[in-house]
């Protein structure tokens, strides 16, 4: 294993020091591993998210004016603990309540749930929204359901803008739920990631094969297939996503994220194909992001997210944001 780190044990603490050193507009609680925005939040709803580390810039890179008020960093691929999340909630609440943005993993659900119970005991109004957008996973009430991936970022941006405009907790939650419901994702990996504490790839992939339907934790995907061209892969991703949800007739926000080790030139080549596939289906990309936004350590591959939008959502998407990883109109 080769990484630019001091040691697996200190990686998270070191990275948080780096975040603090790089971004004046953030304040880092090192003990609780929380990245706070210094943007004013008096009298408005605050957004808290978090999850296992290794998905950077998710979530710490989306903390700042117009997006998250705090992000809790768990250990690598391990959801944060209730006391961390509670500390974030108490740190950001100004009386208007807190929305928890949770990705649908058992660990995240349980820990955010325990934190919500504790926060409510302290008189903080808490609402939650759960993102479960990965169509690679069959949806069923008998299982843990779908994983939460790229829709999370889009939800954090749009809901963050609504909170900045002073919407009530209930309204922000309803909006967030609307985004979560209208988002679908699917990913593919060319290589596994290597969890630092493990020191070797989570799975082996022969030179001529790829994993279709991977998540962002180095778990194997749904299917191992021969390596596809960008055109073929775009077809597979778009087909899976659009047969799961009908995007026709609405503008979509598209996110093509690399999984951490994917160079931008490849992502652009993929995006050319994705946009061609969507064109063929008369689906209009109203807004897009191409880059490494929701990652899985050093994994190579990509994940496509589409969120069905409307004018209200696009307007909130375009609203000012000032975070390390997304910044515009500020």
């Amino acid at each position: 294993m080769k990484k630019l780190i001091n040691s697996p044990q200190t990686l998270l603490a070191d990275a948080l020091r780096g975040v603090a050193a790089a971004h004046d507009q953030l304040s880092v609680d090192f003990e609780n591993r929380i990245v706070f925005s210094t943007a004013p939040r008096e009298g408005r709803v605050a957004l808290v998210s978090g999850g296992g580390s290794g998905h950077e810039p998710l979530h710490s890179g989306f903390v700042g004016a117009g997006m998250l008020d705090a992000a809790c960093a768990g250990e690598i691929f391990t959801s944060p603990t209730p006391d961390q999340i509670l500390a974030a909630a108490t740190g950001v609440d100004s009386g208007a309540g807190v929305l928890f943005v949770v990705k649908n993993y058992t660990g995240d659900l349980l820990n955010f749930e325990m934190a919500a119970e504790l926060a409510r005991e302290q008189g903080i109004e808490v609402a939650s929204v759960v993102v479960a957008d990965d169509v690679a996973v069959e949806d069923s009430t008998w299982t843990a359901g779908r994983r939460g991936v790229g829709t999370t970022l889009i939800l954090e941006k749009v809901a963050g803008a609504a909170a900045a405009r002073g919407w009530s907790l209930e309204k922000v939650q309803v909006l967030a739920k609307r985004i979560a419901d209208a988002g679908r994702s699917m990913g593919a990996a060319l290589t596994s990631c290597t969890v630092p504490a493990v020191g070797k790839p989570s799975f082996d992939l022969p030179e001529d094969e790829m994993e279709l339907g991977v998540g962002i934790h180095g778990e194997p995907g749904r299917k191992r297939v021969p390596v596809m061209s960008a055109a073929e892969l775009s077809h597979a991703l778009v087909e899976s996503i659009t047969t799961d949800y009908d995007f026709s007739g609405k503008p979509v926000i598209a996110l093509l994220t690399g999984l951490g080790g994917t160079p931008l030139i490849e992502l652009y080549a993929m995006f050319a194909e994705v946009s061609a596939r969507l064109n063929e289906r008369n689906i209009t990309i109203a807004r897009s992001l191409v880059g490494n936004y929701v990652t899985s350590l050093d994994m190579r591959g990509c994940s496509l997210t589409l969120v069905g939008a409307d004018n209200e959502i696009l307007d909130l998407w375009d609203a000012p944001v000032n975070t390390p990883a997304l910044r515009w109109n500020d």
Partner: protein
Amino acid sequence: MSEALTIDALQQWLHRFAFDITTQADWLTELDSAIGDADHGTNMVRGTAAVVAKLDGGTTGTVQELLKAVGITLVSTVGGASGSLYGTFFLEMARNSPSDVQLNGSELENALHAGVNGVIARGHATVGDKTMIDALEPAITALSQSLADGRQLQGSIAAAAAAATIGRDSTKPLVARKGRASYLGERSAGHIDPGAASAAILVAALAASIGERTA
């Protein structure tokens, strides 16, 4: 009668648990690599080491206080699914333990039962979902059965440990319906569930520490 578990015995259990987790951490992580996210060993080491540090910090108090401290420590250091679930296990044990410095056989049975039920209530898993429940549930059933049959605590806990091991192994062919492994669908079959493996270690540690004590 020697059938009661003292605070010391409980501490010995937890130390043993921590030790066994540490020596088997790589294996747990390997199991989690196959069908999860390759952190279960690391998670459990972090949590059980924190428990040991907490115990070594002193101030024992009652069984209830001890178990509560363990639960809180696990919840606040492990993270992930297992942190919340193992934490709940001990917190529920604590809520169903006497404010005393020891537990007798049926009190222990009660507490363990409550612990397992707490995990089920939190995680909504049932036997066959390929989770730690597949080890914990048979273990508590075997314990109850054995005690009901009039066997001694030590032997009954040994029976529970044996049942946990069998339950652990029973997860191998299963297709997961809960936790991260469920994302794999059919591909989750053919691998032992990491949480079932750590749960079997937990019960085996109890049996071993009681065995040592009474030996």
